């Protein structure tokens, strides 16, 4: 048990002492601040028709718990789904494999480690929710239990299940991270739709939010005398704020059966871990590297020495074209080859799907499939340890960074070509411009977040959230013109992209000066 705790502690410390974790924590805090809209805000997060609750302890406690449960389940998966991968790349896994620790214990330690990370963020959001109460409350009494109970009953079991799911996905799909991301994306969407608009059996609700939302709807029904309170909205909705009416939400007494269901989800998590431990590779991974085969070939070669003085002379050439070419090749070749099958299906869909569907739905999904490629655009030097070469190269900032940005944009536009051609046939230059700018924006975002966080995760998480909101047609996050094509929008995207690129250039420049 002591060894297990030491394993957990070291895992937790190693992960929380990282720069990406701090950035994620800051972003989570900023997002948590928006969970409860300020009184004069023009958006709502949870709303039942025209109603939302008075800002009492119950409303703030439960609303922030619902938002945290959904938000952290979505983002948290991407934050923690590489625990085993890190042990493989750091070679710690090979050491662990030789110890007495069982597969189940190891996977359990990973799941609990994930849970501790997510719980840390949830705790910070919890503190923020209490602060929000004191900022926004207009004389309602502070009831600490109305904060603790929803977080304990709703948030923690959800996070534990997501933590286990991250390990489960890694065991079975660890070598295909992109598939992990995509499958979870669809699984999450399915769960959310089912939880909030499908089943009425609260026990089947993974996020545990349906029972609270039902109670909120019931409270609204009681005061409005309307039988059917349609119009429940969860998430950031703009407009209709002027008509807002308020109702007193007084919390919920969770039935015993519901509490048992929350325990059952945790139990299912343990079962999934047990199942995964049967198939866990225990770091006996098939190596791609086959030295014997290649070395045998070498033995047949007649060896000759290098005659330095007789080597052909080379010329100076500061063109960026060869760099763009190789950066593009690296982008195309990264990831599994079968992903290109998905890309081709996506590109074909862009050719034949109705124009609005192709632009609004297929394009953001097709671009999201490139998440791993773009996230490694400016981080691969550190990942592959080639930064010694690149940083010692001739004018690395002006030449290499530029070529990386251009190659990333080329990939975006190449994939969007059928859509661009269709708009060109229609002479719809406004939509063509929005797609071009969308490509520039998403690559700029990948570059700036990669440089800022020195890792891939932050961009992956934000791109995932962007894509999710894009598919749900939230106008604010529409970066590729699926919904807008006004001049003001084009201008805004251009300015934001330029700003992101300037920030990237500046930070990398400082980075190079400080090395």
């Amino acid at each position, binding site marked *: 048990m002591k060894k297990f705790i030491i394993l957990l502690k070291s895992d937790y410390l190693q992960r929380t002492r990282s720069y990406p974790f701090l950035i994620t924590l800051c972003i989570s805090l900023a997002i948590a601040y928006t969970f409860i809209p300020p009184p004069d805000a023009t958006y709502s997060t949870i709303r039942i028709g025209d109603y939302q609750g008075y800002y009492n302890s119950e409303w703030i406690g439960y609303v922030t718990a619902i938002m945290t449960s959904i938000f952290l389940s979505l983002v948290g998966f991407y934050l923690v789904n590489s625990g085993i991968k890190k042990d493989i790349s750091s070679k710690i896994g090979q050491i662990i494999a030789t110890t007495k620790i069982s597969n189940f214990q190891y996977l359990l330690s990973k799941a609990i480690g994930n849970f501790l990370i997510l719980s840390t963020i949830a705790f910070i959001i919890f503190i923020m929710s209490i602060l929000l109460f004191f900022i926004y409350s207009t004389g309602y009494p502070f009831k600490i239990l109305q904060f603790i109970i929803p977080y304990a009953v709703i948030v923690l079991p959800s996070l534990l299940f997501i933590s286990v799911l991250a390990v489960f996905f890694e065991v079975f799909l660890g070598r295909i991270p992109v598939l992990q991301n995509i499958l979870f994306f669809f699984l999450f969407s399915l769960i959310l739709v089912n939880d909030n608009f499908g089943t009425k059996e609260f026990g089947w609700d993974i996020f545990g939010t349906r029972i609270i939302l039902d109670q909120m709807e019931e409270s609204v029904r009681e005061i409005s005398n309307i039988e059917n309170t349609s119009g429940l909205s969860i998430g950031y909705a703009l407009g209709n704020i002027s008509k807002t009416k308020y109702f007193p939400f007084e919390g919920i007494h969770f039935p015993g059966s519901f509490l048992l269901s929350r325990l059952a989800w945790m139990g299912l998590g343990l079962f999934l871990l047990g199942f995964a431990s049967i198939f866990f590779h225990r770091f006996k991974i098939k190596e*791609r*590297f*086959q*030295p014997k085969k*290649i*070395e045998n*070939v*070498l033995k*047949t*070669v007649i*060896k*000759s*020495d*290098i*005659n*330095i*003085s*007789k*080597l*052909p*002379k*080379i*010329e*100076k*050439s*500061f*063109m*960026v074209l*060869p*760099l763009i070419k*190789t950066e593009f*090749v*690296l982008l195309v*070749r*990264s990831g599994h080859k079968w992903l290109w099958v998905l890309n081709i299906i996506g590109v074909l869909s862009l050719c034949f799907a109705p124009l609005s569907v192709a632009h609004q739905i297929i394009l953001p999904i097709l671009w999201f499939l490139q998440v791993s490629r773009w996230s490694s655009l400016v981080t*691969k030097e550190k990942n*592959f*340890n*080639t*930064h*010694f*070469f*690149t*940083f*010692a*190269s*001739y*004018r*690395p900032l002006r*030449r*290499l960074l530029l070529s990386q940005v251009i190659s990333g944009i080329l990939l975006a536009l190449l994939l969007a070509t059928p859509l661009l051609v269709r708009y060109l046939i229609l002479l719809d230059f406004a939509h063509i411009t929005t797609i071009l700018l969308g490509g520039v924006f998403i690559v700029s975002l990948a570059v700036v977040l990669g440089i800022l966080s020195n890792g891939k995760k932050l961009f992956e998480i934000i791109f995932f959230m962007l894509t999710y909101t894009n598919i749900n047609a939230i106008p604010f996050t529409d970066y590729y013109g699926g919904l807008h094509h006004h001049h003001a929008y084009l201008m805004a995207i251009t300015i934001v992209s330029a700003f992101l690129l300037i920030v990237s250039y500046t930070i990398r420049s400082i980075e190079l*000066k*400080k*090395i």
Partner: protein
Amino acid sequence: MKLDIQNVSKKYSGKKYGLKDYSLSIEKGILGLLGPNGAGKSTLLKMIATISKPTNGAIHLNKNNIIKDPNYMHKQLGYLPQDFGVYPNLNAYEFLEYMAALKGIGGTQLKQRIALLLEGLNLTEVAKKPIGNYSGGMKQRIGIAQALLNHPKIVLFDEPTVGLDPEERVRFRNLISELANDCIVILSSHIVSDIDTIADEVAIMKDGQLLTKASQNTIVDSIKDKVYETTITKEAISGFSANHVILNTIRKKENIIVRYISEENPKDSKLCQATLEDAYLYLTKR
């Protein structure tokens, strides 16, 4: 061609120094950097390669301050880092073409130069295969090839023989000897045999400081008449090591043959011919 390192320090957090008040000057030829792990060899090479900046001091190449103008160094640098990586999805040709573009070189003869380098480093047969499939030694040779791509005037090799087999080491030493005819070569290692056969001068480092820099003969002469060998029992070794600087031990059944340093002429010990390894161990252990 002259490289001047003047009072260079690299301070990390707290009071820890990677390099402390380090000065060195080198002209054409091979300088061997010897030192135990953590001596500051890689830190020094990184600073010369301009991928790490000194906290204090100056580095000049041909009187050009390369800290202020790193591109002056980049144009003529060939650098093989100790712990470098490669892009596993590229083959050797593609990787070297990429490296050439990074270094700002090209021209019609580039492909031929790459082909000859790969041939000389015995990689032609696998040059079209992804580097991800290469063994450690093959990756090391790719690293050597990229360092020689741009006809460098200053070449830095940080632990270059890691992963090379004995035959490859010999070939590598020959290569360095030829390179040194018209450029500066700095070669770091903690393996004395990598250095003693080729280095014109040797700099021995410890804890971020330069202990000595001189020709091999001068360094070896500093411990001439101080290296002895004797045979003692296994039980006596701990007491013996407390009073002497031990250079080497060889187990022989119940006894141990001990090679050690002594300022006086001890009884029952045989005077031995000093080597560079003896001098290195003496300087870094005392």
